[in-house]
């Protein structure tokens, strides 16, 4: 028995020491990423007056540099494609933990998808994986059940198969990060869009209670940190969703500002400014960003 335990212990001590080599790959993983905004947040590299959080509507439709020029407020876009409000809450929490509080937060809403169950928006763990060298990120992955507790000790448990690849990740034309964190769509998608004019019915029973809680938590975080929260309804190539608006009003604290795109402006019914039915191209984003700047300037 003594021999067995000694052999086993020796084996694991040697393994434990050798596996530390995995930190080479863990440290290299972020370098393969085009989008390293999350790393900058955790490293505390920001000190902005205004940040934008949201999903692809946020990252595509708002040009943070233009906003900065027009309002004089230093701005940065921290929206991510395909993420839900739980992820947006995580971004805000992380930002506030490692960086000075901004004066304003723009929260881009996803209309009926904002609080809905299931797809198409979700908590994108894949955005966290490359940055698991940071204990904060790794702990978040553990809490979400995407890593096990062993990853606190073993570097190998922080790695993914993809981390062994030496290639840089492919960047699509609409994923090119601009200086202020936005990713405008350069051209329209080669499809014909049809304007959807029908009245939408909002279904409360299709809501995910965790997403409702996340929205409340965002409001509370802003309140405690003295941040002006501005929720934004971006344009879609379809009729305005009054059903969602009604529901939103029930959940929104009246102290927060709300920006709704100018529904009477005919430009938002012009197909040429859209990438697809819910995302603008750069020209459309310029128009929408100006509208937001105007609102901020008039409410300073």
């Amino acid at each position: 028995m003594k021999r067995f335990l000694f052999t086993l212990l020796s084996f694991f001590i040697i393994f434990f020491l050798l596996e530390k080599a995995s930190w080479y790959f863990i440290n290299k993983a972020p370098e393969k990423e085009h989008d390293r905004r999350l790393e900058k947040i955790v490293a505390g590299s920001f000190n902005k007056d205004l940040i934008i959080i949201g999903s692809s509507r946020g990252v595509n439709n708002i040009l943070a540099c233009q906003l900065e020029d027009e309002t004089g407020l230093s701005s940065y876009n921290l929206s991510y494609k395909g993420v839900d409000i739980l992820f947006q809450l995580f971004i805000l929490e992380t930002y506030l933990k490692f960086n000075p509080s901004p004066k304003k937060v723009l929260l881009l809403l996803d209309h009926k998808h904002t609080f809905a169950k299931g797809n198409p928006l979700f908590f994108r763990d894949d955005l966290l994986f490359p940055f698991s060298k940071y204990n904060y990120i790794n702990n978040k992955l553990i809490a979400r059940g995407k890593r096990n507790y062993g990853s606190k000790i073993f570097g190998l448990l922080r790695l993914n198969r993809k981390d062994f690849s030496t290639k840089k990740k492919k960047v699509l034309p609409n994923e090119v990060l601009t200086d202020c964190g936005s990713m405008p769509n350069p051209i329209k998608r080669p499809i014909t869009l049809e304007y959807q004019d029908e009245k939408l019915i909002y279904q409360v029973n299709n809501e995910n209670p965790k997403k409702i809680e996340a929205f409340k938590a965002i409001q509370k975080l802003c309140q405690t940190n003295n941040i002006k929260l501005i929720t934004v309804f971006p344009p879609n190539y379809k009729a305005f969703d009054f059903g969602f608006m009604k529901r939103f009003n029930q959940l929104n604290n009246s102290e927060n500002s709300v920006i709704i795109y100018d529904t009477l402006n005919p430009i938002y019914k012009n197909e040429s400014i859209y990438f697809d039915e819910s995302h603008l191209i750069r020209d459309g984003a310029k128009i929408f960003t100006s509208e937001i700047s105007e609102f901020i300037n008039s409410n300073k």
Partner: protein
Amino acid sequence: MYFNSLDFALFLPIVFILYWFVTNKNLKLQNALLVVASYVFYGWWDWRFLSLIVFSSLVDYTIGLQLNHTAQPSKRKLLLWSSILVNLGFLGFFKYYNFFIDSFVEAFSFFGSPIQPNTLDIILPVGISFYTFQTLSYTIDVYKRKLEPTRDIVSFFAFVSFFPQLVAGPIERATHLLPQFYKKRKFHYSQAVDGCRQILWGFFKKVVIADNCAEYANQIFNNSAEHSGSTLLMGALFFTFQIYGDFSGYSDIAIGTSRLFGFDLKQNFAFPYFSRDIAEFWRRWHISLSTWFRDYLYIPLGGSQGGTWMKVRNTFIIFLVSGFWHGANWTFIIWGFLNALYFLPLLLAKRNRTHLNVVAQDSKLPSIIELVQMGLTFGLTVIAWVFFRAESVTHAVTYLKGLFSSSLLSLPTIRPTNLLVLILFFIGIEWIGRRQHYAIEVLLLKQSRVIRWAFYMIIIAIIFVFSSDNQQEFIYFQF
């Protein structure tokens, strides 16, 4: 508690230490520890399931003793049937109740008399199919006077609930496992090291091969209508390796863990994908279940003793029952039926016991004929697995139609290179170790410790990296 969980990583060393350092001087105490540990292991899923296993153990323990006291054949038969009814009754209720209700409703609707279904919200207790068969084997063997009933209740309870093999086998026979609880176990260095090696290989099969194949198999099977024939073929192949890696991996971990406690469990998989015909495949796949059906169903039905018709009938019965054992779904029954069909020509030609040895026994590589035989057998099993994996019979049929379409010759859209390389590595190691109980049993044993340890460490490193990507439950837990 799953083998591939942190809970088990803590549970195993604790039980190991208590077993060899605290209770080692007293056999009864050691067995009692195993019972407690097994109940903790099992209750980790849902403590309510414990009542079932305790009740089942009590019934068979009592009936075993009663059988010993009774010489009267009719009374003995009654006792045997009581045990069968209780055990299969639980199994039938928890596993098949809703299936039968749904099937009746469908049948009535088909004949134009729709009725309201009265299904129940039943949770299938983990491992019920496995321990039910294990306890049944005890009672049947006592009835047949092949085994003396035990008076040692602790040993009997430990035999029924022995945690390494409780939830997914191997299904042990009382004649083999129970006597091991009567004797004092001694710690053997070589046995323990061998156990660790088998556990390691089991984890590799499960975490690296099965879980990663599952990711792609699920992706393809869940959207099968959208994929080309070649991609559907990839999906079927991924599932073929998933089910093997998952189930044989579990068996390896179970057998290896038992060896750490001084127990010997029977081999459950003997490299089935290297079989040269379906009969050989079934001698090598889930051996503990196949032999259970052979001994407790096929032989009592007359086995191969009668004429051709009886042999064919009995073969179909055991394959259909085996399919049904896997789950309450027509897909499993058709999977069993298909295997019986594959088996039929061999049975009729009396060639079902042609390949009793290991393929390429005396050479490193198979002959061309063996290669063709293995390829054909493998191909047939891949087709059968489609039924096993599909959501419904219609799904399986459309999947196979799509697979055998003209797009079979196109390039698959899903072809993960890393995984394909790992599968080839896996097949290579399994081929090298095909004469052993598990692939790495003697691999590199003649090499220096540095080389052996380097190999084991690489395997652990691969397991670690792959385990962080996606973890899946063991497939056979649902059976």
